[in-house]
């Protein structure tokens, strides 16, 4: 249980931080697609009897690079959809060929945080440290690009490189998180908390920290609730993620109304 909580904590920090930039850049579709391509990797690894984490990582990073390579002028929706469809097709094939399917598929799609083993703690901690350092380095250029788009770097020196690095970060966050919260619900952890954080503060770096904090709270509450109720963790993450976002919007709307009333009065 303690290891479980540690892994879940690390996953939440990375998902909250990477998700923040995903939401700001408007690339939540990528955050939705990459975990699902990772699902194909896990299915392939199961078929070959390899470590699922390895399969997930390989497929997620390959998909990220594919999206980065195919996208044009910062528009990645079509490229993402193509990569997603290709990978889902492969995942379906791997599953059909594989003998032991349903229970494993279920845990890959919806997560199995309580089944996290001690051996996952080391790699997860390493990936967390790497991702957070990389985000700290890339934070300012990523933020600037989220505001001005292509014009952030009119001389176009870093743009492709920055896009690629960011997609690989999303892939790494995915690799860590899929075994814990599942491919389908990874999305809720990478989108709900950051989207809520945007509404709660006007300051970018404070919003980033808030996003990580909300992701942590969501995951802790979900793990505790799943442990007590025996319902899937994914259910709680999904519901709480959406709930956090809804609360954030309501709070922002109330604040705006109060400020409006104050100005009018």
């Amino acid at each position: 249980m303690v290891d479980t909580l540690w892994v879940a904590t690390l996953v939440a920090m990375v998902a909250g931080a990477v998700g923040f930039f995903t939401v700001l850049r408007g690339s939540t579709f990528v955050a939705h697609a990459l975990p699902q391509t990772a699902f194909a990797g896990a299915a392939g690894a199961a078929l070959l009897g390899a470590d699922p984490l390895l399969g997930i990582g390989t497929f997620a990073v390959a998909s990220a690079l594919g999206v980065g390579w195919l996208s044009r002028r910062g528009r990645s929706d079509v490229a993402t959809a193509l990569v997603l469809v290709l990978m889902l097709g492969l995942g379906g094939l791997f599953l059909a060929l594989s003998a032991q399917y349903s229970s494993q598929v279920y845990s890959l799609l919806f997560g199995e945080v309580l089944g996290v083993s001690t051996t996952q703690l080391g790699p997860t901690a390493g990936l967390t440290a790497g991702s957070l350092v990389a985000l700290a380095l890339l934070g300012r250029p990523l933020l600037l690009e989220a505001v001005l788009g292509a014009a952030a770097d009119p001389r176009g020196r870093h743009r492709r490189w920055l896009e690629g690095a960011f997609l690989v970060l999303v892939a790494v966050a995915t690799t860590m998180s899929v075994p814990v919260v599942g491919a389908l619900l990874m999305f809720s952890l990478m989108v709900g908390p950051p989207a809520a954080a945007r509404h709660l503060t006007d300051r970018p770096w404070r919003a980033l920290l808030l996003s990580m904090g909300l992701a942590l709270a969501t995951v802790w509450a979900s793990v505790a609730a799943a442990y007590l109720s025996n319902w899937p963790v994914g259910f709680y993450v999904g519901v709480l993620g959406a709930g956090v976002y809804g609360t954030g919007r309501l709070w922002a709307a109330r604040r705006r109304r109060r400020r409006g009333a104050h100005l009018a009065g």
Partner: protein
Amino acid sequence: MPPVPARGAQVLSVEGVHVWLSGREVLHDVGFEVRAGEFTGLIGPNGAGKTTLLRVILGLEPPAQGRVIVGGGPGATSEGAGPGRTAERVGYVPQKVVVDPDLPLRARDLVSLGLDGHRLGIPLRNRGRRQKVDAMLEAVDAGRLADARIGTLSGGELQRVLIAHALVSDPALLLLDEPLANLDLRSEHEVVALLARLTGERGVAVLLSAHDMNPLLPVMDRIVYLAAGRAASGGTDEVVREEVLSELYGHQVDVLHVRDRILVVAGPHGPREADQAAGLPEPPGRTRSRGV
């Protein structure tokens, strides 16, 4: 603060630039100079090549012939001709910036990113930087907007903050791509007056593209008129004349002075529909004028 080039020093030189895009010559032998402390208007109808020219100056579009030299004085000269070789001291206000209203970013943060947004690493709290950002916001009359979310700003307010963002690193040259598009007349007037004041106060050279020269007439030191990929430059009186513009457009155009405004319209044997698609002015009768 880096040394401000003396007023009148050359900060941009465009020499005999030709650009071909998908088999069509978009710029033909374009050449002009921009000097420190001067306000230069890059005027021309839609499709004349204004944005392409700005891209060439930024080093994004390599010219097929000719060269672009950007520099703030001796030693600071660098060639902008080619995507790899770029000028560091150019501030840029892009065309059509649309801001997500949910973006957690204040005006102050955007200006601060103009100072060091390209750098890697975590921004640390720094009193000097904060003062510089505050002073820059004051300089564009946006001091009271410092803590406003940029998604809540009006068009004119956002334009002022974007100018602060571009100027805070003290560039020698400020490029603005159609900054007056979509502004109401009052904001348009404010932005033009602000830019004119900044050229005087800071010695920066302003190169602003616009399809309508009229809002700029009171402040322009120099005009670069671009039509059908060709340019004429000089004082407004030298350039905006029938014989000069007719030569540029390749057919007769009339230059009409209406009170303090200038209208450029196609003459009696003006372009047909096909030519208009190439960015030539509309014939009289269909010309829309602007009231002031």
